[in-house]
């Protein structure tokens, strides 16, 4: 069994919201595994079940070999949990937060101080260690969060939307930190994100989650390779359905997906296909406003499997049902 093993998890909240409709995936020891999807897709609910914070409606999950429902204590000892909401005490200093966390995670008192010093150094908070957390910047708070999750040297770390709400610079810095983490500590990381580039950059493997289900799973490259050829996006005036119908007639086109005012076409070779696509649409009397050609990205993978473009803010925020 992998480090994390999830089988057909379901969860329906009290207000009838079906957050999960059968989520399954396996995370191997030592890999960074991503759950990618928009808000409300079920990522946070999955992580909360795996952190023993909420009970699944059905299905099974094992973390570090412990069943999340029947052996929550075993799970809690094995994991570091860095939640979406910061979870650090704003009225404590960085060091106080870490010391308390070390204590409740059963780090022996004689080890705790050295461990906390080492972590403060590692996340670059040694100088701010004795300042109250409510004076920290967003990036400092996030680094403290991660240190909190690592204080007991867990074998598995959950990072729930680690870079949400951070400015691009801080995000890039955090990505570098996470790279370092992977290199130095070889721990298993379960990461949720609604940033495609983040999943692409950090994850060894990932699962795309949409409406409470895993729609596809694989390495970023496998997923991108599964999309043949190039992607041509045509912005059209008016509805995209008739344009999609016109393009489907062409032999060079593998697949066409209408998406709002644009049509996305998969073709063998973009450069060769574009004249044909344009001609076909002109013949159908459809005005083209813009044509873009791109190599497949995770965004295209996402579109292919879910039938809609990735829009991080599309669904209701997760946690509304709680």
């Amino acid at each position, binding site marked *: 069994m992998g480090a994390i093993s999830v089988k057909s998890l379901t969860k329906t909240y*009290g207000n009838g919201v079906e957050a999960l409709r059968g989520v399954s995936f396996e995370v191997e020891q030592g890999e960074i595994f991503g759950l990618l999807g928009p808000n409300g897709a079920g990522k946070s609910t999955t992580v*909360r079940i795996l*952190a*023993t*914070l*909420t*009970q699944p409606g059905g299905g099974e999950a094992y973390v570090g070999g412990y069943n999340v429902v029947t052996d929550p*204590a075993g799970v*809690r*000892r094995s*994991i570091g*949990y860095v*939640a*979406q*909401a*910061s*979870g*650090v*005490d*704003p*009225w*404590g200093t960085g060091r*106080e937060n870490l010391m*308390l*966390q070390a*204590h*409740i*995670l*059963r780090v022996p008192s004689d080890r705790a101080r050295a461990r906390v010093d080492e972590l403060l150094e590692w996340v670059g908070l040694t100088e701010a260690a004795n300042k*109250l957390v409510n004076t920290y910047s967003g990036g400092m708070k996030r680094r403290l969060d991660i240190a*909190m999750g690592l204080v007991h040297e867990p074998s598995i770390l959950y990072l729930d939307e680690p870079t949400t709400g951070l400015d691009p610079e801080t995000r890039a810095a955090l990505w570098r930190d996470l790279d370092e983490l992977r290199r130095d500590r070889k721990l298993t990381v379960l990461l949720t994100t609604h940033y495609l580039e983040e999943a692409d950059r950090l994850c060894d493997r990932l699962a795309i989650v949409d409406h409470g289900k895993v729609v596809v799973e694989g390495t970023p490259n496998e997923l991108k390779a599964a999309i043949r050829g190039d992607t041509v996006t045509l912005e059209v005036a008016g509805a995209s359905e008739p344009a999609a119908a016109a393009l489907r007639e062409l032999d060079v086109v593998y697949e066409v997906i209408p998406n709002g005012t644009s049509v996305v076409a998969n073709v063998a070779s973009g450069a060769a296909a574009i004249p044909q696509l344009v001609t076909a649409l002109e013949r159908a009397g459809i005005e083209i406003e813009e044509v873009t050609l791109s190599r497949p990205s995770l965004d295209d993978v996402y579109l292919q499997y879910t039938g809609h473009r990735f829009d991080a803010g599309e669904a209701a925020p997760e946690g509304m049902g*709680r």
Partner: protein
Amino acid sequence: MKHFIADTYHLLIRHIRTTLRIPVWIFVTLTQPVIWLALYGQLFRRVVEIPGFESDSYIQFLTPGVVIMTAFFGSAWAGMGIIEDLRGGVLDRMLATPVSRSALIASRVLHAGLTVSVQSIIILILGIILGADIPGGLGGALAILLLAALLGAGFSAISNGVALLTRREETLIAVINFFGMPLVFLSTAFMASELMPNWIRFVARGNPVNWAVNGARDAMLGQHWSDVWAYGLLLAAFVLIAGFFSTQAFRMYQRSA
């Protein structure tokens, strides 16, 4: 059990630290009793002239009432802290660790009992400065602290329970506003029992605030010690029931989260 005690201790330290780091809280805690004692002491000064009033010094009568009232209101707001933890993700972060669940509640209840004791000492000293007397001596003063701490522990447990069930500051504020003043006025905090309408005197018998006020007043005067003990036992039972309520509320929170 070993973890329960150690976790309670570490969490208690955190709560105390937080309290001491909010200067407004310390300011209000120190000045509010002065206002209560000075203002009500002046406003109702001549109440003692009503025939049948049991005391001839209103400040003497009022001091134990203000001690208990402060304990009651101070602890009734205790749930705000757990809502803040819940909102900020602190509670979830802790629940994802092996921390003793009972310690999460126990540390807050103990913290309420402790702050209430400190406040009570301040009010007693103020009362003495303003002219009250403690014929009950050191034993009487300690009994007052104990009764206030018990009441504070009980109401902080209820407040935490309500906070966990509703998870909203607004609801907790509404509940406290609804029950707060009535519970104080359905006690002998401001008015002697002999002068109360019968129905109020009857209702007051089941009011923990009234138990604490009556017990504290007897202890202060050093009289009716068996009554003081009885009120103490009643309050201890109240703490147990309130504690049971809050742990059940905690279970429900974890189940429904």
